[in-house]
């Protein structure tokens, strides 16, 4: 399978468009068609990237919620079970396309590329540096948290002795102490490598928009326009 690598800027536009489309309700078959299409495109892109498992999971999940919604909503039952089911499926069918697109973008974009795209879009260095730290700290928090969880298990305080406040305190406090000390060392290591120099940061990635990028942007732009006209000029 050919790998279609898109420019990070195109990917950001895709998120923007899909996030917009999921917020407008689809009524006519054409609108539903577009909606399903903009959901299928990121799924297909996931397939070209070789992420079969997640593509499959998303397809099944989205398909199931669409079908359930179609059958449940035409029933006139008011039971609690169907209320919960409708609540779930409604939310899934509505917002899953945005989640899928986001998943695709996050899974297939290197942080370096993303930073480079931010530079191209003239985002100030301060913001892109902070954002890089956010990205670096998500996995760190996960690692630290799981060690803390282990330590709590050994002490038998996972449930904080039954107190919710303790449960939160015992998790948050060591986590914050770790993050702060890692942050101190990270800052020291970063400034000795020139972070904060009064020059524009550069990047080894040279981004170029290719044909595929323009096609994608075209498809998504047209979809957004159709939805806008349908909603406001009907």
């Amino acid at each position, binding site marked *: 399978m050919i790998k279609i690598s898109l420019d990070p800027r195109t990917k950001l536009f895709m998120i923007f468009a899909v996030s917009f489309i999921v917020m407008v309700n689809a009524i006519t078959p054409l609108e539903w068609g577009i909606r399903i299409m903009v959901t299928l495109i990121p799924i297909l892109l996931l397939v070209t990237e070789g992420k079969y498992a997640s593509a499959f999971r998303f397809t099944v999940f989205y398909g199931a919620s669409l079908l359930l919604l179609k059958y449940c909503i035409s029933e006139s039952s008011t039971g609690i079970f169907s209320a919960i089911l409708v609540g779930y499926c409604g939310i899934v069918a509505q917002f899953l396309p945005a989640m899928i697109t986001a998943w695709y973008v996050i899974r297939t974009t*290197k*942080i*370096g590329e993303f930073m480079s795209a931010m530079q191209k879009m003239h985002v100030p260095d301060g913001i892109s540096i902070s954002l*890089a*730290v956010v*990205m*670096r700290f998500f*996995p*760190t928090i996960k*690692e*630290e948290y799981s*060690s*803390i969880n*282990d*330590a*709590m*298990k*050994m*002490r*038998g*305080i996972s449930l904080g002795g039954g107190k919710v406040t303790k449960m939160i*305190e*015992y998790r948050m*406090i*060591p986590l914050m*102490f*770790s993050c702060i*000390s*890692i942050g101190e*060392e*990270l*800052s*020291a*290591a*970063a*400034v*000795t*490598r*020139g*972070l*904060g*120099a*009064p*020059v*524009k*940061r*550069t*990047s*080894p*990635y*040279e981004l170029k928009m290719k044909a595929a990028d323009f096609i994608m942007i075209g498809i998504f732009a047209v979809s957004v326009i159709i939805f806008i006209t349908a909603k406001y000029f009907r």
Partner: protein
Amino acid sequence: MIEIKNVDFQYKGSEEAGLHDVSLSIKDGETILLCGASGCGKTTITRLINGLIPHYYKGELSGSVTVSDRDIAQTELYDLASVVGTVFQNPRSQFFAVDTDGEITFGTENIGLPPAEICRRKAEVVNELELEALLEKSLFALSGGEKQKIACASVSALMPEIIILDEPSSNLDWKAIGELKNVIRKWKENGKTIIISEHRLWYLKDLVDRVVFLENGKIVHEWNKNEFSSLTSEELQQYGLRPIKLEEKYIREFGGEMFSPESRSSDTTFEKAVTIRDMYFTYKPQKYVLFRKKLTAESSDKYTISIPKLRLPQGSVTGLIGRNGAGKSTFLRCLCGLEKSCPVKLDIDNESISGKGILKKCYMVMQDVNHQLFTDSVEAEVLLSMKSEDKEYADKLIAELGLAGFENTHPMALSGGQKQRTAICSALAANAEILLFDEPTSGLDHRHMKIVGGLLRKLAERGKTVIVSTHDPELISLCCQYLMCLENGRIKYFRKV
């Protein structure tokens, strides 16, 4: 050329020891080792040279520091970035990017080099330090040694003439230290000026040109290479330094061969024992639909850890050694019941326990002890472990472990060793029978290592079963009565020391 002249320094708002009247000049291309006990000021000297003092760590500074004709106090840190590079102690906290490629180029991006130049330097560094296999990987998936190599590469890409290494081997195993040594050797061949602050001395003895010994913020001694390597172990002990020569048997044991002739013949009969049974564990469990398949002896050859039966001596200290990735940490995690899918059973004092019961009987002091301190005072920390709070007993334990006077101190305000002892205190308070230590001496100086060794012996004398995983041969000779070696998650040998 580095010139430190009559420098006095005191950290602001911190009791961390400073420097008193330090003068040191380092010629281009020299390799200098800074040594001395923790808190002697060797890290502070490295910070003077890389500019973190006075630009990052604030304090009172007098005297002058010049590096390559630049007055450090007047030079911004970013201007120093391509003059002085620093590799820090903790591989976990010094990287900025998420992937290896981004980390190698991080410094060059900061100083705004054009993309083509960044790529050229990256290729050069990758080639020189042989990093091809590590490219395009998440830094979070790397071992400590691999992370440290990437840190070296990131520094190298900035092409500084001076490279500082601040206790770079603290968190590394034997093999990784060997690779670190190769990197330093390459830098030395390229004519870089290298300054290393370190506790582990053995791997540096044939690399350094000059050794500077510090005590209480003062330079007390200087040795050249020959004088340094002819120091006797008694002399080193007097200075509180770790040995520079290691006994043959440990070199063989740690150095990769992992073979010990005594292993088969040695006598391992002991009366009181904790018996481990059915310790099977795998990181790649079979796919299951509803019920997880129990791990059993039948397919044990595929498991990460497979120990059908093992007797551990009660009331003694057992050292756990093995290469990185041999399963030492996993073994400890399984033993204290943290891995749920591991069906391990323990026989202690004619009682058989499994599942949750194991968590109550075992306690592991983690490598990063900060993760296991939860409360706002040492006393509360100990009380938290007790079923019914017994203040008197808690204070007794605290005093016994030398923490008297710190009862109301916040555990995070303690030193590393004191934190470790607080964790041990709470393990004793919880009445744990088996105490596990995951590399308790990484980054400790000789004096602190001796304290830890003594402590482990004392715990064993109380009748506790102590198991300590380590890369430090010194610690083994200090306190271990038995030694077990893991390879591929299997027991390679178990012998008396």
